[in-house]
């Protein structure tokens, strides 16, 4: 998560209204999920990568690395779809027999597996487009615009901020322990981690008390209300997003005939 944070705040699409990007990502994702054609999926993945590299100016190597993360899970998942178990003799391309059961790959199972792979990857690419171009604070802002309940918005705001305080505190303790040989052997390391987590627990309580005090002194009355910077829509972005979605739609229409 920290890795993504570095890029999202410096991406070049950031300074327009977050709503246009989030809506575009969601609409495209829905299309990816509805349309069951691998060529469309590849088109979606391709356009998202192009947008990220050329419009948001995020390095291709970063996107590739990020795409490899879900790919690992996907391949394992897809393999289980590709292999069919049956006692009857299906039209296997390849199979082996254990305890009178045929385990193997058929043409249709291979197709389903491949489709699942491309659907997932294209949906993930939409999601990456959103997360890499829209900082969490702006995603929360969009959720607020989409009328998500206030208490969830507040929780998200606070959690997002304090994840970093938490990680920071944890690492500070960890480094301090390391400096005093707290992690020199496995046994010592276990012991040190126990102390670290115990301490974090206490510190979290202490911090939350201090936070409440400082919120109160700025007029906290039970809920957190804030103003967001004024975002402006970019005509160019909206036009290119709409055109892209139309292109994907008509490609799907053309291919389905």
């Amino acid at each position, binding site marked *: 998560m920290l890795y993504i944070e570095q890029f999202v705040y410096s991406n070049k699409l950031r300074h327009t209204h977050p709503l246009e990007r989030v809506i575009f990502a969601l609409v495209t994702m829905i299309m990816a999920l509805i349309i069951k054609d691998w060529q469309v999926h590849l088109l979606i993945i391709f356009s998202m990568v192009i947008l990220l590299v050329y419009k948001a100016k995020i390095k291709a190597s970063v996107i590739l690395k990020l795409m490899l993360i879900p790919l690992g899970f996907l391949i394992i998942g897809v393999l289980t779809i590709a292999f069919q178990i049956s006692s009857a003799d299906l039209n296997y391309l390849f199979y082996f027999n254990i305890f009178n059961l045929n385990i193997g790959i058929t043409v249709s199972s291979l197709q389903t597996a491949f489709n699942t792979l491309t659907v997932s990857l294209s949906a993930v690419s939409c999601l990456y487009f959103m997360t890499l171009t829209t900082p969490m604070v702006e995603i929360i802002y969009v959720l607020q615009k989409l009328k998500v309940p206030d208490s969830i918005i507040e929780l998200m*705001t606070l959690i997002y901020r304090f994840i970093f305080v938490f990680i920071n505190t944890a690492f500070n303790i960890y480094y301090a322990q390391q400096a005093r040989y707290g992690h020199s052997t496995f046994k010592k390391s276990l012991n040190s981690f126990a102390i670290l987590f115990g301490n974090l627990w206490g510190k979290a309580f202490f911090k939350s008390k201090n936070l409440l*005090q400082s919120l109160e002194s700025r007029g906290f009355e039970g809920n957190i*209300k804030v*103003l967001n910077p004024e975002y402006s829509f970019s005509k160019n972005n909206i036009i290119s997003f709409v055109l892209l979605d139309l292109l994907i739609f008509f490609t799907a229409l053309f291919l389905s005939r």
Partner: protein
Amino acid sequence: MNYILKTEKLNFSYMDGTKALKELSMKIPEGKKIAVIGNNGSGKTTLFLHFNGIHRPQSGNIFYRDKKMSYSSGEIKNIRKNVGIVFQDPDNQLFSGSVYQDISYGPVNLGWDEKEIRKKIEEVMNQTGTFDLKDKPTHFLSYGQKKRVAIAGVLAMNPEVMILDEPTAGLDPVFTSQIMELLNDLNKKGTTVIISSHNMDEVFSWADYVFVLSQGEIISEGKPEELFRDAEVLKKANLKKPWVLDMYDYLLNKGLATVGDNIPRTREELLNLIK
């Protein structure tokens, strides 16, 4: 002299039994630059938390503009608007991942008009030099930047009294002088500024009036040039004499400096008085 904040025989102890404040009475003159000094654990932060109604005294009274605090919800709201506190650790104060959101929080709570709030945010961002940070996430800021954002968040509420708990602790000299400059500007516009500090040189050159807190009691108060010459107080509160004053007194003794209209409070003023 108008006193904007007054405490009368304030007592407060924490749940573990530590007596943080003992029969503490003090008067904060309006429109002045006030410093509260004393060792760690002497009760400065606890005292500050009383000033805007976060802590309630276990006995004793607090007056804001000669009106006794009654802690009714309407009054508390008013007090918190008028008395702003910048906490020592900015990580305890900044609750949002967005600098802009965080600064907007106080004014939104005050129920101002959106346009007015946006104008105010821009103004305090310029005042505190945080305008360039507005698109940055809070967790990417340095300590000094966080501190300035925290100050901006309180400044945005337009408080009459601005309290800063160790505003310069952990800051480099450039940031420190920028912040002290900012506090001077605020004061010139009529804000009463109260700081706590461990840096006696800073307090001596900046403050109009100084309170010395030791173990929950005010053991001395006065103008810095008088207070810091009281060897007994300095010893009792474990404080160091500011170097400008120390040097000046030494030079006076040796007959190497002239007695000016005022006691020198900065290096430049001291240099002018050396024969």
